[in-house]
């Protein structure tokens, strides 16, 4: 994608537009076909893989060499497991896999640093676990709303992670975060009133799992992450647990209003994280 652009900014915008349009077309097509949640659950992980391809200009060979290539297969394998576990209909197994995935991902990505950096790998696994817990457990009970909430939460978290990735010397992860976020915006826009939109195991294991693996790569392999900014950003995965009481208090009943309020509250820690980055690094962004 960068080959078609005249500047890094153009490449980024072109990539975001492409990822967004592709996701919009796919989501619109599925909606027009009245595809069920099994199919719409594939939109987010597929968008992640498309974003990966747009950023890295490749489909890595298997077995993957290096952490960046492993990210792709974390997403692919996560998606496959997600589809399978949804097919079995066993909720307990799905929950177990969703929580095990970031641990396995941290070990897989951080293999080169084991056993010396065991505490760091463990911290990366724990962080991923918290992210998955926030995404899967704190997004409300309403079936027709929780998928949209999860997608919005993941999208906002990606936007918040982008500057951290850039500061962490990974312009590719920066682009990946923003391209994926653009695709999720398109998916949400196409499905905002779709009761059959699903953000289930495939989206969690493939889409969110892929993005967690990307963050773990920046943290464990490139090793230049601003931990304070990341800690502040991680609060975004806690806010869903406090959203419903707030929404009840303000008596928000309309779905769009509730989702907008959810997004607004999630933006608070992301804004704080970006402000932290700007306060700490000012104009020294390595663009």
């Amino acid at each position, binding site marked *: 994608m960068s080959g078609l652009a005249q500047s890094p900014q153009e490449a980024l915008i072109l990539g975001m537009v492409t990822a967004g349009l592709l996701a919009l077309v796919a989501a619109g097509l599925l909606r027009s076909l009245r595809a069920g949640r099994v199919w719409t659950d594939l939109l987010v992980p597929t968008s992640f893989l498309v974003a990966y391809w747009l950023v890295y*200009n490749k489909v890595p060979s298997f077995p993957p060499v*290096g*952490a960046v290539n492993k990210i792709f297969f974390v997403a692919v394998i996560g998606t496959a497991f997600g589809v399978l576990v949804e097919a079995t209909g066993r909720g307990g197994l799905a929950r177990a896999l969703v929580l095990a995935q970031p641990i396995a991902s941290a070990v897989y990505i951080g293999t080169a640093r084991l056993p010396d950096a065991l505490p760091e790998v463990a911290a990366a696994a724990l962080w991923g676990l918290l992210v998955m817990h926030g995404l899967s457990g704190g997004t409300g009970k309403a079936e027709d709303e929780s998928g949209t909430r999860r997608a919005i939460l993941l999208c906002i978290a990606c936007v918040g992670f982008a500057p951290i990735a850039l500061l962490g010397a*990974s*312009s590719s992860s920066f682009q990946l975060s923003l391209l994926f976020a653009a695709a999720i915006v398109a998916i949400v826009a196409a499905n905002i009133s779709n009761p059959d939109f699903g953000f289930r195991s495939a989206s969690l294991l493939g889409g969110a799992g892929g993005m967690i693996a990307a963050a773990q790569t920046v943290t464990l392999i490139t090793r230049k992450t601003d931990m304070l900014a990341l800690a502040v950003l991680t609060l975004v995965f806690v806010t869903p647990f406090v959203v419903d009481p707030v929404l009840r208090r303000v008596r928000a009943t309309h779905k769009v209003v509730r989702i907008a309020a959810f997004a607004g509250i999630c933006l608070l820690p992301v804004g704080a994280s970006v402000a932290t980055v700007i306060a700490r690094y000012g104009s020294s962004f*390595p663009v």
Partner: protein
Amino acid sequence: MTGQRTVGIINREETKTMSNLLRTTLLAAAIAWLPLTAERAAAGTFDIDPVHSGIAFFIDHLGFSQVIGIAKEFSGSFQFDAARPAESSLEVAVKVAGISTNNSQRDSDIQGADWFNATEFPQITFVGHEFKAVDAKSGTISGDLTIAGVTKPVTLDVTFNKEGQNPWDKSHVVGFSARTSIKRSDFGMKAALGMIGDEVSLVVQVEGRARS
């Protein structure tokens, strides 16, 4: 009985023939091997002298300039005999952490997973396995270059500079210059393609000191 005796005679004759053949073969091999070992003894093993050797690379930046990078830490050795260059061997290892582009921010960035991925692949290696002389002063070395865990065949154009005694310490020294170009995308480094060049020119100066 006659048949058995015939078989016995044939066996004895065959055994004698085989024995003569074996003796002749061994003798021929020994004679052939003598000059070979004598020449091999003249071939030396040289350690790359990092003080008088260098590895530099050049990569396009937005078409405006060629950013110059150098490898600060590298080591290696080679076997070389000017009379039999085809039998040479070469092994070089470059420490990724020691790569410098004269900017600390960029030097730190290129260590990351998008580029050299120093955490997982701390060394770049080149193992030369085919040496061809073009003329008395030049030739090629084909070998395997491994960067960020990806190995690709690369051919270096080599100029033989000089072999002789270092007047300062009397060590036996041989010097070469080498050039090649590679595509970073071949080694999985595809970050910022189109803005930062894909083709990377490599320039190598090697001074090797013979092991005593």
